[in-house]
């Protein structure tokens, strides 16, 4: 029997980037806020102390900072003809757990998504007509344009101390920056990162082919930085332990040392860790959330009433909680009706491994999570993609994110996986190889979705969420086209050998690809196609707001944390308006 607690004005579920941003921004209202985080408390010191945090086995292989799937996982199948089976161990993506969430172990790549990514339906139909959309593709707009989000992108960049070079300042294109980006009002708060030899080779090769290379936007600090909230950041050591690790220097922006301590310092904010939310409880009309039920570290059940609830967990967990709680109608792929679970998407990868002679030194261990040279010449909306037979595109880059050797041991195709010949190849190529990679967009499709599994249950007796997802021809064409571009860039570098990596035949949940899961509770202006209105508010239960990458109607050729942060900052403003006059912020 749940112990009923004293009501709070606002209950926030999850304490990563978006929960932290909302707790900090909404604390200004003076209203009482309770934040429930399923994982442990943690801080830079002592949790990420040097040298102990430079431990590839513990953090990268054994997933110390990630979701514990023995407690909560999902089931997966490629299509609805298969029986979904549990993800029994982490692989393809790595949701976080604990204070700071996945924003502790991210790389720090902080994009603004391209204008096309926010309004792909409008822009595609305007350019190519409605007949251009392939069967089953559910392309749709956010209801929030790039220009509307621009002030929040700007705010998030300054919060995070992003280093980069503007390519479009107020419409003026600047060589050396990303000339394909949407217009920005001001430059990044910090200069770009120092490039590696690999980045230099990419830049020269891309330029020689007529492309527009630029340094990637990085929340790894390129100098000491104090953000507008007065939070101090250290300068990045280029240690190469970013992705899957916490940063001992506070040189990688993370909610755990920025927005979260600022929220926690407020008297009206209470953070409870080891508090795992089981569901949101609605009133008898299913129109209003009354409370959330959660378990503490000892397994005791509590009911936390609240005037409003914000779901700020990982993208997949938010959708799971909505399905478990009956917030919004579940999506049905047969009828195409319902909205929760609709338009789940991922990304598609392809590229080239580029092998050099032994006089070319990459020093792959010197790097940072977001250190990369990029081109957007083939990203969403930058080129005539339909002429090449697909909708979408991808960001092409040469990242220098570190050379930790359990994970990074490039060898040419045909090399045995073990034995003396394998060892000789590892030694030969470790220091003399780079990758040119495509991070490809994936659109929403009628047949790719999330719902509740009919068979499997988690440790707490709740149905697991079921993921039904596979790559479609449109994305495979895109990834193959961009793989050829990657090969051309590799060849232009003067390498000994370039090994192409084409599109995957099927999506597999086994190898790590990216923690860029999107959709399932998407933004939009049409309640029959979106779970959220353009203000991150659920259409059906107006006192529930939802943040995170589950809001994106399709996935882009870029990392999602930039728009995730920007949308959370915008949601905070929307919620402040809501609090003055509770009710739907958009007409239903």
């Amino acid at each position, binding site marked *: 029997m749940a112990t009923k607690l004293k009501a709070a004005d606002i209950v926030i579920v999850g304490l990563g980037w978006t929960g932290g941003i909302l707790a900090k921004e909404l604390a200004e209202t003076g209203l009482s806020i309770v934040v429930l985080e399923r994982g442990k408390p943690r801080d830079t010191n002592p949790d990420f102390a040097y040298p102990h945090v430079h431990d590839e086995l513990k953090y990268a292989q054994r997933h110390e900072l990630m979701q514990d799937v023995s407690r909560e996982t999902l089931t997966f199948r490629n299509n609805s003809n298969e029986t979904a089976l*549990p993800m029994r161990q982490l692989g393809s993506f790595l949701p976080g757990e604990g204070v700071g969430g996945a924003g502790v172990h991210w790389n720090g790549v902080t994009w603004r998504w391209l204008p096309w990514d926010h309004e792909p339906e409008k822009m595609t139909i305007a350019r190519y007509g409605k007949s251009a959309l392939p069967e089953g593709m559910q392309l749709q707009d956010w209801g929030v344009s790039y220009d509307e989000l621009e002030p929040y992108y700007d705010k998030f960049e300054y919060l995070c101390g992003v280093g980069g070079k503007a390519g479009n300042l107020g419409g003026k294109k600047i060589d050396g920056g990303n000339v394909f980006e949407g217009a920005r009002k001001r430059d990044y708060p910090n200069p770009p990162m120092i490039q590696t030899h690999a980045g230099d080779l990419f830049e020269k090769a891309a330029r020689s082919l007529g492309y527009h290379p630029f340094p990637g936007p990085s929340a790894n600090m390129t100098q000491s930085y104090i953000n507008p909230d007065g939070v101090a950041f250290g300068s990045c050591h280029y240690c190469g332990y970013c992705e899957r690790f916490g940063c001992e220097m506070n040189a990688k922006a993370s909610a755990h040392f920025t927005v979260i301590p600022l929220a926690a310092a407020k008297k009206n904010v209470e953070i409870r860790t080891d508090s795992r939310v089981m569901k949101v409880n609605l009133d008898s009309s299913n129109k209003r959330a009354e409370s959330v039920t959660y378990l503490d570290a000892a397994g005791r059940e509590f009911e936390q009433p609240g005037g409003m609830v914000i779901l700020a967990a990982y993208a997949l967990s938010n959708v799971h909680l909505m399905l478990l709680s009956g917030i919004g109608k579940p999506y049905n792929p047969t009828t195409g009706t319902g909205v929760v679970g609709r338009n789940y998407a991922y990304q598609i990868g392809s590229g080239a491994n580029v092998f050099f002679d032994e006089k070319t030194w990459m020093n792959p261990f010197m790097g940072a999570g977001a250190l990369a040279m990029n081109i957007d010449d083939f990203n969403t909306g930058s080129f005539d993609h339909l002429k090449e037979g697909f909708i979408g595109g991808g960001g092409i880059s040469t990242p220098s994110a570190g050379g930790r050797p*359990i994970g990074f041991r490039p060898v040419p195709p045909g090399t045995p996986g073990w034995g003396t010949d394998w060892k000789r190849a590892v*030694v030969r190529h470790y220091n003399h190889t780079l990758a040119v990679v495509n991070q490809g967009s994936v659109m929403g499709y009628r047949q790719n979705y999330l719902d509740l599994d009919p068979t499997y249950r988690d440790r707490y007796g709740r149905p697991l969420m079921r993921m039904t997802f596979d790559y479609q021809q449109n994305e495979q064409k895109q990834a193959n086209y961009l793989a050829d571009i990657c090969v051309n860039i590799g060849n232009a570098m003067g390498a000994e050998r370039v090994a192409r990596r084409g599109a995957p035949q099927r999506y597999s949940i086994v190898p790590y690809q990216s923690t860029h899961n999107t959709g399932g509770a998407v933004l939009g202006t049409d309640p029959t196609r979106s779970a959220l209105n353009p203000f991150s508010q659920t259409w059906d239960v107006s006192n529930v707001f939802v943040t995170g990458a589950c809001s994106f109607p399709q996935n882009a050729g870029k990392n999602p944390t930039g728009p995730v942060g920007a949308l959370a900052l915008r949601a905070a403003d929307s919620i402040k308006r809501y609090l003055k006059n509770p009710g739907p912020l958009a007409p239903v």
Partner: protein
Amino acid sequence: MSDHEGMRRRDVLKGIGITSAAVGIATTAAPPVLTEAQAQTPAQEPPHAHPHPPERHADAADIFRYFTPPEAATVTALVDTLIPKDDVGPGGVEAGVPIFIDHELAGAYGRGARMFLNGPFAQGTPQQGYQLPLPPADLYRVGIADLNAWCVKTRDGKRFDQLPVADRAVALKALEAGQAEFAQIPPRAFFNILLQNTMEGYFADPIYGGNRNNAVWAMIGFPGAIGMYEEDIEKYRNKQYVVAPKSIQDLS
């Protein structure tokens, strides 16, 4: 290998109650290589046999905690086949990989502490990933038993570790190709985890028992846990960066 390391390894074998002569751990890493006759010595210790007290105690860190002595012999031979000692660099056995695997299996990882092991269990597609009800420690126990039973049946009554070195590689290739006939589990499930853990132990920080003396990091030119390159990244651009690798222990 130095004399010291050779001594130390022999102590380890004594410490776990086996000697090369008793169960035949022939590795490319450490002499003595067994003769055919020695290799065919019966595998099982007599019941209730107690090893002679060792003349010197082995380092506690070198004691197998999970594997039985015959299992340790099998895993040692497997690791030695996957990463032999050669002119390129350290062998997996001298790097400490069998001890690494054993210690991983003896702890939370081995028990599948962070795996979802609720039923029902069904064989899925390759895209759905691992679906056996076995956490890693159990997977090794079953896999080693299956491997040795298959070897005994198809290779003149010899267990894997009793095979001549060249024959081990042939057997392992069959295992990798899924062509070995295992009684209980798909052979590739065992091969995959064995290869993964072998690579982890070989390349991980030495605090876990493998990559002894940072020798594997030195072989590929990885500086280890140091990670202070703000000043060097420009200075060494397209130049070799030579530094003695440091482990977490070295920096602590």
